[in-house]
């Protein structure tokens, strides 16, 4: 399955992935409209410290502990992509308790949100990958 891989060697810490993610999931047709005067809450997040930076988003684990832990059944795996049914999610944060990557974050509505590889938004393919200026984030099949 095609997954997002992050190579910190090439990460510039520019945070553009976060903005492209927030835009792609905003449902708006322009980034200005979507993000002007907005504090973004993206599904991919940069960690930085001491000159090192890298993006973290859902790894779409083969044995996802989040879906097994989900108390509502809102987190499911569909064709390898872990998806969240925000309507079902009550925001109990059990997935935040269990995700070893810290890749699941609260959304603005109280439900949680996570990377769904942009399959359900206007981007159609991972916007963070397309927006990364240095190929630090790639979307590819490995092995």
């Amino acid at each position: 399955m095609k997954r997002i891989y992050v190579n910190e060697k090439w990460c510039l810490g520019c945070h553009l992935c976060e903005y492209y993610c927030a835009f792609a999931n905003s449902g708006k047709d322009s980034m200005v409209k979507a993000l002007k005067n907005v504090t973004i809450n993206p599904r991919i997040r940069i960690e930085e410290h001491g000159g090192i930076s890298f993006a973290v988003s859902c790894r779409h684990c083969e044995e996802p502990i989040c879906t097994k832990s989900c108390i509502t059944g809102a987190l499911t795996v569909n064709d390898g992509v872990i998806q969240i049914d925000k309507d079902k999610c009550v925001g109990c944060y059990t997935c935040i308790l269990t995700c070893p990557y810290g890749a699941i974050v609260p959304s603005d509505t109280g439900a949680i949100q996570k990377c769904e590889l942009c399959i359900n938004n206007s981007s159609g393919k991972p916007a963070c990958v397309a927006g990364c200026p240095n190929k630090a984030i790639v979307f590819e099949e490995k092995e």
Partner: protein
Amino acid sequence: MSKYVIIGNSAAAIGCVEGIRQIDKKGDITLIASEPHHTYSRPLISYLLYGKTDEQRMKYRPNDFYKKNKVTKKLGETVVSIDKKNKTVTLKSGEVIGYEKLMVATGSNPFIPPMEGLDSVKNKFTFMTLDDAKALEKAISKNTRVLIVGAGLIGLKCVEGILDRVASVDVVDLANRVLPSILDETGSELVKKFLEKKGVRFYLNDSVEKFDKNKAILKSGKSVGYDVVVIAVGVRPNISLIKDIGGKCQRAIITNNKCETSIKDIYAAGDCTESIDCASGEYKVMALLPNAYMQGETAGINMAGGTKLYDNAILMNAIGFFGYHMITAGDYVGETYESLDGENYKKLFYKDNRLMGFIMIGDVMRAGIYTSLIKNKTDLNTIDFELIKEKPQLMAFSKKKRSEFLAK
């Protein structure tokens, strides 16, 4: 005769079905449960009252779950006994069903301690099942005064569910603080203060001496008026089916890392079991939905002839009230690191170069990174502990580890 018989219909039972179906796509599965409902998530009953979900959305699996997984369901029926020799179960109706592999996922029941005058209380409820929640919902209105006995997870979740829908909520607990099973004193105090600000009144270090008509007299002498009482002092695992046939039990049914009971071909999972807590190495009841599911799944895989071990369970919890969240896990032993900033509180417990447990209140972002440190027994010498103390972050791991996490 059914190849697999599952007693129960909650997370452990569903995990078992899904575990079996990973290996065995065809073998008959019969699922028997006392509750007549489609599988639903019990922890959601408070959210149901709070209005965050409804009966349709709280279904734990989609409507076609049983059909898709070829499960014969017998809902609203209760297993009264197991014949381990002949490998059958007997239902209340008298029906006898044979099994090759049996899953006992009977969960637990609310414990109701003897309290003077409780019998005379007309509107008293427990808070465990969908039916409990619906009954409670019927009994309350904007004018209702509710007395909740128990300031534990269930009691306080009930508070959240009903607070905005009733006139007042009073909580009594024998313990001197709220959520003593998951929080330390500082944490308890934060949560208590938060809930008090919301209008909840606590009577801690206290208990109901006697229920009068619409008034509870407490040990301390205080009296609390009520219209409705909710008893949430604790639960008792349902172990009788196994205990009756000589299966090994302590507080709950003892299971090994394959989720087998001491009786051949009988497995157990969920709140009715005890298993090894990998943080402490001791047998514990780790009653939490994720654990139940994963136990059930493990059992299912093993029942169907696969191999899977359930060997990294820990005590853990994610809970929140009115948007004030807390996540806790592991054992609260060893040295500690604490930070308190307004309503955000964090405490880490570490011993022998391992993270043993943690409490996070308020800011719970990325808590799972801490959880995995406990579960994986990560040697703290291999990570940057200063960074981990500051916040859960992958940056604390070695470059090689980070690459394993993110680039492979």
